[in-house]
């Protein structure tokens, strides 16, 4: 389940210049309290990339994600999601969003939770069931279809929420520290599974984390962010070969990239990064 033998379908694009699916220019966000959450952020992400936003608390990584998802509106700057502005993109259901907490509806079974977006979006009855079954199988939870969320562990619940985000087949996934609340072992397993999903589905993923190993292991590029004010410090490409395995973490390249990220964070005074 964890490790797929199938070769990756698609080579991730590391060249952001070619028709970006996400593009942000001079993006700034100042909250009503006066806090500058994000200042002058510029970012372009190509189709099929796996981008991590890393940085300490207050660096604006979640803010950036919420801006891209049109959950909040920027105070300055422009965003393009697949050629649309964020509101249009949201209304055309261009992305799936996975939160820190699983955010499952406790009155719905696991299966019904995966069907939720399909019901909201008025998918045909038969297609809803087929898709939900497929997505549950994809995250390996088909046996728990009839259970209620509280009967599942935290890691399983988060897998359900990933299946739910994938159910309506958006091209873009926003993931906001989805594994932050889980223990280390569960998290590493889920990281591997996420990579497999990414390879199998060809989605573009933007992933917020404050763990350097997680970012290095998952990403094609790492966006290093630093606080006060929140800004993009630098973008570090990760040219580790695909598919990545547990062994990837033991390689010299892995450590070298992790060191680069740590240096970049330190340069922006982002000392309080946790690992």
């Amino acid at each position, binding site marked *: 389940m964890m490790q797929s033998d199938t070769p990756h379908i698609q080579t991730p694009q590391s060249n952001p210049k070619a028709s970006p699916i996400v593009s942000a220019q001079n993006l700034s966000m100042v909250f009503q309290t006066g806090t500058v959450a994000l200042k002058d952020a510029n970012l372009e992400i190509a189709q099929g990339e796996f981008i991590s936003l890393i940085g300490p608390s207050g660096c604006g990584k979640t803010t950036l994600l919420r801006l891209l998802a049109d959950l909040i509106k920027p105070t300055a700057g422009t965003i393009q999601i697949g050629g649309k502005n964020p509101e249009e993109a949201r*209304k055309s259901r261009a992305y799936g969003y996975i939160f820190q907490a699983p*955010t499952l*509806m406790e009155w*719905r079974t696991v299966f019904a939770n995966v069907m939720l977006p399909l019901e909201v979006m008025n998918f045909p009855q038969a297609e809803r069931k087929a898709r939900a079954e497929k997505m549950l199988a994809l995250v390996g939870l088909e046996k728990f279809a009839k259970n209620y969320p509280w009967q599942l562990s935290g890691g399983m619940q988060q897998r359900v929420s990933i299946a739910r985000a994938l159910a309506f087949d958006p091209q873009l996934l926003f993931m906001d520290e989805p594994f932050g609340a889980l223990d280390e072992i569960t998290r590493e397993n889920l990281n591997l599974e996420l990579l497999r999903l990414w390879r199998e589905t060809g989605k573009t993923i933007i992933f917020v984390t404050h763990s350097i190993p997680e970012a290095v292991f998952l990403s094609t590029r790492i966006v290093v962010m630093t606080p006060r004010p929140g800004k993009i410090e630098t973008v570090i490409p990760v040219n580790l070969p695909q598919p990545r395995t547990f062994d990837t973490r033991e390689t010299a390249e892995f450590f070298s990239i992790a060191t680069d990220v740590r240096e970049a964070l330190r340069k922006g005074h982002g000392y309080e990064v946790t690992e």
Partner: protein
Amino acid sequence: MIKSQPTSPAFQKALLGWGMVVVGFAVLLWFIAGWWNQSEQATDAQKLLIGAGFLLTVLGTARVANLFVNTTHPVVGFTPAALTLLLVVVTAEALLRAYQVPPGLIPTPSRVVATLFEVRDVLLRDAFQTVVLQALVGYLIGSSLGVGVALLVSRFVFLERGLLPYATVFSSIPIVALAPVLVKMVGIDWQSKAVIVAITVFFPVVINTFRGLTEVSPLSLDLMRSYAAGELQQYRWLRLPNALPFVFNALKLGTTLAMIGAIVGEFFGANGQGLGFRIQIEAGRFGFDIVWSAIIVASVIGIAWYNLVAWLERRLTGWHVSYRE
């Protein structure tokens, strides 16, 4: 029950417990039978005997109750509670007879049961007026209005600021203060009591439903927004299901409030029938056997109603945290 060999200590314990219960009840019933048609007080020795029978049964019931600690069967598990009820009733019968308490003060349980049977037609008609016309109609009106208003208030913030504080204030108006005014305004027929019930049920439903509709996790709201769900869809898929347990809490409370409102309302004017009317008339005439019969009818209906709503709640909100094992 504990399965055990006839000679095992557990079996002997069980036998002792049941034996005490049987002997205790036998003593009490023997006295009642002997004193059935007496009109003098019992002797001190006989009163002592009642005490002994009572004590024996209490101790026996305690032992028996221990045998049922691990019983999960809903009916069998009720045995100790049923024994307790039976003990209270039988002891009351014996004591009331021993002390020759006049029926105008406290009627014996047997007399109450006989009366209940004798006047059942009238009590059922009374119950129809009190429960169906007054309590149920008022309850349905009050709770549906309550849910409707809560929906509006949760949708329009200005209503929340302008209206909700009053709901909290109004919900604490005691029914006895409200009832005479409403009976005077609406009249003595069942409608006035339905209005009383509707008002008392309305406010808790508004407050609870509003809480259920608004105490939604911000992440869930973000999720609905990410689905580009409109206001209506947000209610349908998130707010309403989230509110359901809250609504049921109010609806369960409402059954009790409705019965109280309907009965108490009749004390301030009634059109010649109803359980409250019957209780008031008969209490004034020392017809406490009828008063108790009416109370039994009201209680049985009240409990059944509550359990019906609780059953619906389990059916519809079985997922809720309160039902997890």
